[in-house]
């Protein structure tokens, strides 16, 4: 029996209302670090318990201690200032970092949070990092003047963090690069930076890419040296899957089957249908099933319902196809070094 269609999530979950309030109180100086930290840990534990009870295969800590995914890392590194708010879409805003000097890691950033989350469960918890290209692209640069130098300095910093996570025991490490699909001419830079991040990394390395021009980014995105590429698929109608028929996808895929920017809860039928479409072009052992992106913009209830849909849909298709759920040994795979298919002689 083959195994596959493992369920996971992309990284973030919504913060419970009491934590949202506590973060505002903390920002206003009315709540101490220890009190906030205790609430973050309680919320992390709640999400770990929820995922365990739901039967998710690879868990995340839910990022209860983070605000924006790029700004969080910038806050913890040398060389950044945190700028004012800018809008992302609709009524969503984030504090955009500003590089004002050489950027570098001064201490482990996520290892404590990962270690705590992993201590709560026997199932694997993913290490969650933001990629160097995305941190650079989502920051203002007042120091480098060269995007490549900025990105590669960040790659060295994120590599240190990834190695520390692996040393702490993380077997799945996700390096989010949602900005990767924005500029086709810079995909080689994304790959160059990721090669630094994953160099010698003894873990299943994942990158998450979303909301970009996938049609043009494919198949060059396969040059990014990771074992798995996690893609937003439900929001874009799974249209990229059709291209896999002509140009095979050479890595494992993280298949987004629920839209994270819609209040509507998809039916299990819809999500299962997305999985079946993926099975037409990829074997089950190279498919991980998850939401399109982090669920932090949904309410807690919406996020839980969407996760239930993800897990139920994967279970249903596993049962239909006789696919098991045993997790493989999570280390580097041949897919990490296999890039985009090249024309003969190229």
């Amino acid at each position, binding site marked *: 029996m083959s195994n596959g269609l493992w369920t996971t999530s992309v990284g973030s979950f919504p913060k419970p209302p009491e934590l949202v309030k506590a973060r505002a109180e903390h920002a206003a100086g009315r709540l101490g670090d220890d009190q906030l930290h205790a609430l973050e840990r309680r919320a992390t534990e709640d999400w770990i318990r929820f995922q365990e009870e739901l039967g998710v295969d690879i868990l995340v800590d839910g990022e209860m201690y983070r605000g924006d995914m790029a700004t969080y890392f910038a806050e913890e590194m040398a060389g950044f200032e945190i700028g*004012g708010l800018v809008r992302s879409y609709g009524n969503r805003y984030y504090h955009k970092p500003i590089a004002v000097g050489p950027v570098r890691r001064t201490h482990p950033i996520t290892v404590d949070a990962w270690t705590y989350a992993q201590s709560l469960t026997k199932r694997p918890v993913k290490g969650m990092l933001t990629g160097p290209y995305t941190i650079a692209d989502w920051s203002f640069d*007042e120091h480098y003047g060269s995007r490549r130098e900025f990105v590669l300095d960040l790659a060295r910093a994120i590599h240190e963090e990834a190695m520390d996570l692996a040393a702490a025991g993380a077997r799945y490490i996700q390096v989010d690069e949602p900005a990767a699909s924005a*500029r086709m001419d810079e995909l080689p830079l994304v790959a160059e930076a990721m090669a630094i991040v994953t160099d010698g990394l003894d873990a299943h390395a994942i990158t998450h890419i979303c909301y970009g021009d996938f049609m043009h980014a494919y198949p060059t995105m396969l040059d990014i040296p990771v074992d798995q590429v996690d893609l937003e698929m439900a929001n874009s109608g799974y249209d990229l899957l059709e291209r896999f028929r002509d140009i095979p996808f050479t890595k494992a895929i993280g298949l987004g089957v629920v839209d994270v920017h819609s209040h509507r809860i998809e039916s299990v039928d819809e999500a299962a249908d997305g999985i079946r479409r993926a099975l037409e072009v990829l074997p089950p052992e190279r498919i991980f099933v998850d939401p399109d992106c982090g669920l932090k913009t949904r309410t807690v209830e919406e996020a839980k319902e969407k996760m239930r849909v993800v897990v139920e849909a994967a279970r249903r298709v596993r049962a239909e196809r006789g696919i098991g759920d045993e997790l493989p040994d999570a280390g580097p795979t041949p897919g990490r070094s296999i890039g985009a298919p090249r024309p003969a002689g190229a």
Partner: protein
Amino acid sequence: MFATLVGAYPRTPLPGQPFRVRAAHARLERGEIDDAAFRAAQDDLVREVMAEQLDAGLELLTDGQVRWDDQQTAVARGLRGFEVTGLLRYFDTNTYYRQPRALEEPAWVSPITVDDWRFARDVAVSLAHERGIAAPPVKQCLVGPYTLARLSDPGEVGRERLTLALAEALNLELLALRDAGVPVIQLDENALTLIGPDDVAERALAGEALRRVTRGLEEAHLCLAITMGDAVAAGADLLFELPFRSYLFDLIAGPDNWELIARAPGERGIVCGVANARNTRADDEPVMIWAAHYAASTGGRGLDRVALAPSTSLEYLPRDRAKAKIEALAEAARKATIADPEELAKAIDPRAVDARSAALGVYEPPSRRPGAAARGGRP
């Protein structure tokens, strides 16, 4: 010679100020306030961002587009024939828009932007009255048919039909704006930067769409704005055969747009997008002034037909940085009108001793310049 926005301005607050419109939006979503109360919060924000433009020294204002989720849905929701779907990245930014999907050939039903423009015009009059100055003109911007079609899902309609139907629909919107008395109507056609050198069919489609959307508007001041890259491959022939009286070019993401400016007929206005709207770093004032002078020199245009602007929407910046950018733009525009080179040099940098060293951003005391002493201290 003046300074203006491309269109959008941050709706975020200045440091230390409350973020009222975000709070109002959240309350609207929770059902705690109604649409009228939310619109009142937006009205307040329009007044605030227009006051900021006026006090910074901008002379052609906008409402900052602070009511819009994004340029595409702002127009698509007002037309018949679209539904609004999932999020997509806007060009290479970290800003997202909901993609319109055509369900049928879109059609214009009633004015989409006229009421908002009238409100902004009245705000400008009121603000000017409070300050005892003449009311500044207010321009209305909207996405052009080629860009809206290219960023939409054309569905069964197909992109060519969608583009041309949008051109006809938006033509009616432009006529409505003209009839309302809008002094400058700006069409934003950023997707012209996506046309490649060999895209003959795309060039023809864009040209036909722009001809249709501008039909019957020869007496209006239409401005064509192109940001997020260069439109060199779209071609000067296409751009300048159209009845636009002025053109706004992004000269940061698309420095090759200078080629187009050099070929723009001298009677057309040029708005130089020279303040980097995608980086917080302060822009080089001498470079902005040089840009104004160079644009003025092309085709015998003169400074009267040149303006300065950010390179694109200022919404990509935090509010305090955007405010600093428009203040710097207005100051650069003011200094660019100083006719005497020596006076200009002093205005740019009091330490500068001649216009050239100021324009280069380099100051070197006369005594240190090679040969300076032999030439009496001045080159």
